[in-house]
Each structure stands twice: as structure tokens, then as C-alpha cells.
């Protein structure tokens, strides 16, 4: 459950402080509000042995956490830098066996989060049968559909209950409500997670729930543990309605991270930017 006595607006370090070693982190897909600002704060915090759940795919944020050695395992439907190609640290970690893989498919991750949202132990899902994804996931179970007259196997996905969800959104209000627009997977992540940490471009004075138009796209404070302002906080990813993706920068990262040395140099450059 969220801490209930926190001041409404914090700084990134306080947010990162909520992440303890060994925790499971839910992180959003590239286009849905990645809090890249929190990536650097998590590196500074240094809590390792993390399990990452990508909702439902991952990119640069997860790749950096893996490259920095903070990640024990990853559940994901894909890891990619989009136009910039594969996720280099992830790919190296797969080959070396440094991380444990839970390869999934997008709707299975949504199903696991939905189970947690509903307080249900599992959700059923069509598909998956006779795939190697299913073969390698001994945490998924197959039952016979008890409503069917003849054989009808169906896969059950257990609830995914992350310790911490982290994302970036355009705005929050002073009451702790966060505007997520139509990116409702961010709400799903928050419902399913014990703690939800949000960075925003700005804090507005009006109550987002007071107006039906903004309320429709608002994640209520009830699900939000802590908020920090991080201007341009998704960069180099874009944020819907705010700024586009800086593809050149992601390509720069993709090139640098091809080697451990390049990756380290990239991180050092980012740290220098931050200090400047």
C-alpha cells in the first residue's frame, strides 16, 4: 500500500529510495510514458537483484538497468530499441546467462496484471497452446475449460503483482492525481502494484478529478504513492502530446552500448549532463 503521509511532490531521489534490492518493477512500453529520469536515479540508488516486468515490452530503460548489473530477471514480450535495433545489454545478458528470462506475449502480461487488479489468483487466456513460450513457462498452467462440452484446454496466467510501478506522465495535480489520458496500461500497472512512483512534466493547481473531461483520463491519488517533477522526463523517449522521441539519441545509445566500455562511457556522459 502507498505511504499515506508523504508530501504530495517529492524529488527523484526520494522516489528511487522506495526501490529496495530484490523488488519487482513494472515499467511501461516505449510510447506510454517511460520515466527515463528515474533510470538515472535508480542507477544512483543502486538497488540491485531486480525483477523487471515490461508492460508489455521494454527498451532503453530496462536495457540500461540490465547493463548496470541491477537486474536478476526479466518478464517481457519483447526488448527492443525500435528503429535503433535490438537492446544490446539485454542481448548480451541473454547470451551470457546473466539474467533469467520469462519470455511472454503481450496479452499474457496484461492478463497477469488484470488478475492482480481484480484480486484474482489468475486470468485465463486463449492462444499460447503448443508454443515454446508456454513450454518454458512452468508458472503458467493449462486446465480444461469447465464450460466446454468437449476437450478445450485453456492457459491460466497467474497474477502479476509488482512491488513498484514507475512511469512518466504529462501532469499531476496537488492532490496526487495523475493524468494518463488514454494510456490506461499505466492505470493497470498502478492497480496491480503495491507502490506506484510517477514523474511528471508539471504539477497543475486544479484538481484533475473535479472536471469530468480531465477526470476521464486521470489515475486517482489512491493508487499513486509518490510523485516527482522531471521536466523532459521521458527523454530520449517521447511523451504523447508533449514531445517526440529523440531517435538520434536512442541510436547513439544503441551504438555506444554495443560494448561494455561504450555503455560505461554513455552512462558517464549522462551523469556529467546531470551534474552540469
Amino acid at each position, binding site marked *: 500500500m502507498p505511504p499515506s503521509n508523504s508530501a504530495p511532490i517529492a524529488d527523484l531521489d526520494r522516489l528511487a529510495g522506495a526501490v529496495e534490492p530484490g523488488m519487482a518493477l513494472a515499467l511501461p512500453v516505449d510510447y506510454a510514458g517511460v520515466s527515463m529520469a528515474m533510470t538515472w536515479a535508480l542507477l544512483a540508488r543502486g538497488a540491485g537483484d531486480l525483477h523487471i516486468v515490461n508492460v508489455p515490452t521494454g527498451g532503453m530503460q530496462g536495457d540500461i538497468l540490465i547493463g548496470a548489473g541491477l537486474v536478476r530477471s526479466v518478464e517481457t514480450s519483447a526488448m*527492443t530499441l525500435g528503429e535503433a535495433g535490438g537492446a544490446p545489454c539485454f542481448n548480451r545478458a*541473454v*547470451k551470457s546467462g546473466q539474467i533469467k528470462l520469462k519470455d511472454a506475449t503481450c496479452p499474457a502480461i496484461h492478463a497477469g496484471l488484470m488478475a492482480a487488479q481484480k484480486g484474482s489468483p489468475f486470468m485465463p487466456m*486463449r*492462444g499460447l497452446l503448443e508454443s*515454446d*513460450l508456454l513450454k518454458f513457462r512452468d508458472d503458467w498452467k493449462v486446465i480444461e475449460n469447465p464450460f466446454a462440452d468437449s476437450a478445450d484446454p485453456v492457459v491460466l496466467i497467474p497474477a502479476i503483482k509488482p512491488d513498484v510501478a514507475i512511469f512518466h506522465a504529462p501532469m499531476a495535480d496537488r492532490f496526487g492525481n495523475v493524468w494518463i489520458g488514454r494510456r490506461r496500461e499505466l492505470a493497470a500497472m498502478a492497480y496491480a502494484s503495491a507502490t506506484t512512483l510517477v514523474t511528471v512534466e508539471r504539477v497543475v493547481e486544479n484538481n484533475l478529478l473535479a472536471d469530468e473531461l480531465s477526470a476521464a483520463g486521470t489515475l486517482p491519488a489512491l493508487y499513486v504513492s509518490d510523485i516527482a517533477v522531471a521536466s523532459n522526463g521521458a527523454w530520449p523517449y517521447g511523451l*504523447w502530446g508533449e514531445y517526440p522521441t529523440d531517435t538520434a539519441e536512442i541510436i547513439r545509445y544503441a551504438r555506444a552500448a554495443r560494448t561494455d566500455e561504450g555503455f560505461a562511457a554513455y552512462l558517464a556522459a549522462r551523469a556529467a549532463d546531470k551534474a552540469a
Partner: protein
Amino acid sequence: MPATPREILIHTIAGLLDGVRHVAVGASSPIPAAGAMLRRALNRRAGLPPTRISILGSREHNFFTNGSAELFDCAGQGRIDAFFLGGGQIDGRGNINLVGAGDYPRSSVRWPGSFGSAYLYYVVPRVILFREEHSPRVFVDKVDFVSAPGVTGDHVYRKGGPYALLTGLGLFSFDKRRPGFTLESVHPGHRLDDIAQATGFAFAHEPAPRTTPPPDGPTLDLLRHQVLDELNETYPAFASAMKADIERDAERHDTGRRQ
């Protein structure tokens, strides 16, 4: 000015989408998107029922408002008639591998992952396998990892599956009873032999397969103007490259005629 290879692909996709009410297209898939847009334009021209196109990750063509789960929900409801899948490897039983080559989990080559394939391949009626690179490393005898199988046992809930395989060399249909692919046509400038050599699995074919038909004049016109303009909104880089292709071809064509 004859159609360019890309235009042949786009026109072929539009043909595969005949009768489709709603087609979803993955992010960064400009050729499938262009095919869907041409289908929509053809329907509009012929006064046929409209074709709805959802392009994932596009703000312009995003008709979803319930987050990234909605595509899958929508497909599960039977509201998506066609979708495109690719694969690092595709085998002759229609199995696709989006995960990696070599022994899982420590793949020697790792690809991004299965995305939504292990669901959509089961529930979307017309899944079009699209991969431009036609080579033995892609079209293998048996995939190293089954992200999603081409066919499944009789007892498995299966509303969808492979409908066609389109590559840079030719167009295949899929027969789920055999199961296997049948070469339907060879793209202009290529031969059956090229395809046989570039394909790691056996496929059925006529002794002399037909050539993939190019778009007729009015259709090519539609593609080069209306569709290209629409495409430019979502894939500006791709639309420019297509324009350049067309101009280069036109020049070559002119030069050819002058010679």
C-alpha cells in the same frame, strides 16, 4: 512507368485484404500499412464497405482508448479481421520464431521477442506473414523456437492463423490441412528456381507459377497519389523513399525508351 517492387508488394497486400472490415498493423510496418491504405482507397472508389485501419503506436491512426491491451481485447472479440506477423525464422508448417536462433534461453542470436504473436496468430482470421528478406536463414526447415505455431491440434481454440506468406520474391498461400505453403505467384523479375534455392522448407507449386500481377493503371495512380499522401503522414521517411524509387524507375524507363 511500371510498378516498383515495393508497389507490387503493396498491391499484393491490398488484394489479400479484400473483404476485410478492420485490419491492424504493427508499429514500423510501412508496407503493410500502405497495403491497408490502398485497400481502403480501392473500397472507397468501388463504393464497397469501408476498411478500418488501426496502426499501432501511431497517434493519427490510433482508434483505441483503453491502453495497449485493447488491440488484443479487440482481436479476442472478433473485431480484427487481418494482422501482419513476421519472424526471424519461419518454417514450412507456418511456425514463427521471434525470439532467437540457437538453444533457448541462451540464444546465439536474440531477437526482440514474441510480442503479441502467441495470441493474435490464434484469433485473427487472416494473419499475413510478411518478410521481405527471402533467404534460407529466414525460411528454415524447423524454427529454433516456436513463438506461435502455424497449426495446432483439433482441440485447440483457433479462430485464426496463417493466411498467406509474402516475401520479396513471391506470394504463398497456406494450407492448414497439409499443413504447408503453396507458391501462388512469383514477383516480376524473379524465378521459381530462385525461390526454391532461397527457401529452407518444401512448398507446393505449379510447374510454372504465374507472375504476381502488378496494379493496373488506375490503381497505380491511386497508390502513387492518394495513398502516398496518406502514408506520408505516418511514415514520412518511407513515403519519401518510395517517391524516390518511383522517380528513379521513371527515369530509367524514360532512358530505356529513348535508347
